[in-house]
């Protein structure tokens, strides 16, 4: 009989079946459907959670509000010189462009200035200038210095003797910032790159920023700004503002030509002025007026402007994030120390808890008979395993930190976590030892081995997969533990150097980044690292257990 015959037979059997069996079949199908549905539902939720965490952890995707628009300028014209200036930076600096206000700060507050403010890279700024006087460098100085102190500037910058020297030294110094005439900016070495400047703001008449019916133009997306200047927006309310007609103000017809000459009709009102004074006065005095102007004029003329949202996206979880040390409470740099601290915490917790746990389990399984003592011990370990970790944290704080005087730090937290994971290790080791067949013990004892030899050479190896599983469960708990650590480990983000150093581990870092609102992106990146770590731990359990089993059996 072939397989198909078998199938046919089976089908004809069901056709002839009694109503009773048909009813059972139907119930079976419904039950199967429900089970399938819930399984799929659960899996979908899991995939969604992990996927969401991973996407958020790996990529950032933000709208950031700036005083200037997204328009970047590589070469910046100067007031009194024909030649443009180009700002250059060391290639290790992970910035491509910077708002002009930031550029000025980098030059003027160099002692406290850090690239971290602009790109989260913990790197001191080293500004360079050209020592030779001359109209070009004076002009650049004026551009940089607007309204600042010449003395501090002189103190902060390092002077270079020539433009070649400038390029060379910027290439050699991490975090360096310098400038050169545009004519020298061809063929820069790899170690140097151009820092573009963003200095165009969206200047508006104060009337645009009024509050009307509880609405107010707080900020504008770059897309809306583009739409505005293509002349398609007639009224501010179309882009989230108040009910006010739009007037585009242009300095002269050359500026205006960019939109007027387009094929599409221009719907917004347009005003073209021919002098600087007219420009400013017409912006201030025309209701609903808007224009593109230099950021510096906002300060000097006391103008109103709308912040522009720039859409920024990129990798969140980068190698830099993993390998750089944290700075400024974790806002800058990476999490390298934090990852290392996590590993140290795991390592020492395992070193402390495993021998004690396994020995306790051996005592319970191999040396006591299942009497009342055993039951009390079992209840004790089970209760301990169920105690919320924050209670352990409290205990650790009172006992290790205060009574034992160990202080908040690595050793207190390791001991507290050891206490916390001990029941897990004892329980799983106990189960593992109990699952070793009695015949192994008898076989060994019958060969004249002592009880201890039997335990060490036969029972423990046979139980090792189960014991390992317990240890990895304990690692999992340690990795994820936060509550205990808040009380016992402190919040220092340096590398652990001794038993009493206060430190952070990943979970704690995540908690602090989030609760102190330091950086949402970094919170997620840290979370993603945690998820990956837990994933690796779990996979390694499977591999280790498989490996051990392979040694043991076929």
């Amino acid at each position, binding site marked *: 009989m072939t397989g198909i015959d078998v199938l046919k037979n089976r089908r004809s059997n069901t056709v002839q079946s009694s109503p009773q069996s048909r009813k059972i079949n139907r119930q079976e199908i419904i039950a199967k459907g429900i089970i399938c549905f819930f399984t799929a539902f659960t899996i979908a939720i899991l995939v969604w959670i992990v996927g969401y965490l991973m996407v958020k952890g790996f990529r950032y995707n933000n709208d950031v509000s700036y005083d200037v628009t997204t328009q970047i300028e590589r070469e910046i014209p100067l007031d009194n010189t024909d030649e443009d200036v180009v700002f250059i930076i060391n290639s290790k600096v992970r910035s491509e462009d910077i708002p002009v206000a930031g550029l000025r700060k980098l030059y003027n507050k160099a002692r406290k200035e850090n690239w971290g403010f602009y790109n989260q890279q913990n790197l001191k700024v080293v500004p360079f200038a050209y020592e030779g006087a001359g109209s070009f460098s004076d002009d650049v100085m004026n551009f940089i210095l607007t309204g600042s102190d010449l003395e501090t500037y002189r103190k902060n910058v390092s002077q270079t003797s020539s433009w070649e020297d400038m390029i060379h030294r910027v290439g050699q110094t991490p975090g360096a910032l310098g400038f050169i005439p545009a004519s020298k900016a061809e063929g820069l070495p790899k170690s140097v790159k151009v820092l573009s400047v963003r200095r165009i703001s969206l200047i508006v008449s104060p009337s645009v920023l009024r509050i009307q019916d509880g609405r107010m133009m707080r900020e504008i997306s770059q897309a809306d700004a583009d739409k505005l200047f293509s002349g398609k927006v007639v009224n501010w309310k179309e882009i989230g503002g108040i009910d006010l007609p739009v007037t585009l103000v242009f300095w002269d017809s050359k500026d205006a030509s960019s939109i007027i000459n387009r094929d599409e009709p221009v719907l917004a009102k347009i005003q073209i002025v021919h002098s600087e004074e007219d420009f400013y006065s017409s912006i201030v005095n025309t209701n609903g007026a808007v224009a593109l102007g230099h950021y510096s004029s906002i300060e000097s003329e006391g103008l109103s402007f709308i912040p522009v949202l720039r859409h920024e996206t990129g990798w969140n979880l980068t190698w830099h994030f993993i390998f750089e040390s944290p700075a400024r409470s974790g806002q800058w740099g990476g999490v390298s120390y934090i990852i290392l601290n996590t590993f140290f915490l795991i390592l020492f917790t395992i070193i402390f808890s495993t021998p004690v746990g396994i020995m306790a389990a051996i005592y319970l399984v191999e040396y006591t008979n299942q009497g009342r003592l055993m039951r009390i011990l079992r209840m004790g370990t089970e209760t301990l395993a169920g105690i919320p970790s924050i209670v352990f944290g409290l205990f650790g704080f009172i006992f290790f930190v205060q009574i034992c005087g160990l202080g908040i730090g690595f050793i207190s937290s390791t001991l507290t976590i050891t206490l916390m994971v001990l029941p897990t290790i004892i329980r799983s080791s106990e189960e593992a030892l109990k699952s070793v067949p009695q*015949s192994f013990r008898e*076989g060994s*004892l*019958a*060969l004249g081995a002592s009880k201890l030899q039997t335990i060490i050479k036969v029972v423990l*190896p046979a139980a090792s997969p189960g014991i390992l599983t317990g240890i990895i469960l304990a690692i999992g708990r340690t990795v994820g533990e936060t509550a205990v650590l808040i009380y016992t480990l402190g919040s220092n983000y340096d590398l652990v150097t001794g038993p009493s150093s206060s430190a952070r581990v990943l979970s704690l870092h995540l908690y602090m980044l989030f609760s102190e609102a330091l950086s949402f992106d970094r919170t997620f990146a840290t979370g993603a690292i945690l998820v990956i770590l837990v994933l690796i731990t779990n996979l390694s359990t499977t591999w280790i257990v498989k490996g051990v089993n392979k040694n*043991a*059996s076929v």
Partner: protein
Amino acid sequence: METNKIAVNKLNLFYGDFQALHDINIEIKEKEVTALIGPSGCGKSTFIRTLNRMNDLIDIVKIDGTIQYDAMDIYKQWDLIELRKKVGMVFQKPNPFPMSIYDNIAYGPRTHGIKSRQKLNNIVENSLDQASLLDEVKDRLHKPALGLSGGQQQRLCIARVLAVEPDVVLMDEPTSALDPISTSRIEDLIDELKKSYTIVIVTHNMQQAGRISDKTAFFLHGKIEEFGGTDQIFFNPVSSKTEAYISGKFG
């Protein structure tokens, strides 16, 4: 010339309140195969396990009477570990350790302090040879023992016992978990081993007892109903109960 290897005198054994062995008296002679037969639950395993004190593992067991091995009391005069080295045991279900074939055999010698690689190699080879397993496994000595077939595993367990150079080998139904071919190989092996070892074997299988043993003890309800030469027990039993059991009327 027959010397007594093991002499059991007025042995009573209790599991708590339950008396499993009643007044056992038996003498086991050197280099003979003594078979223990009887219906299940009659105390054969209990008895054979007392001979190398495996019953010590069970807390509720209480024993009175004497057991002498080489004319010394196994409880009072023999050191437990020495006794178990001398009186080895093969169990009903093959129980190789979850390690390599080599390590299984070397386990006993190693626990007794032999470290030299050369010596261990010799012991492993000789023991496997004696257990007629060498040819089958010599290419895979370092493979897991649990990869062997049931019959091979049981011969490995025998080799493992031989590796500690015992004097007496106790076997508790060593073939009951095996197929007929493996069984006959083990029977051949026992035939071979009795030249150098004293063997006590529990068996459920009458034919087996008939084939391999010199003496047979028939256990019934925790007592030795009859003990004598195998031929006599099988062909000329004194007790009617023995006769009934041998002829398959109960059991």
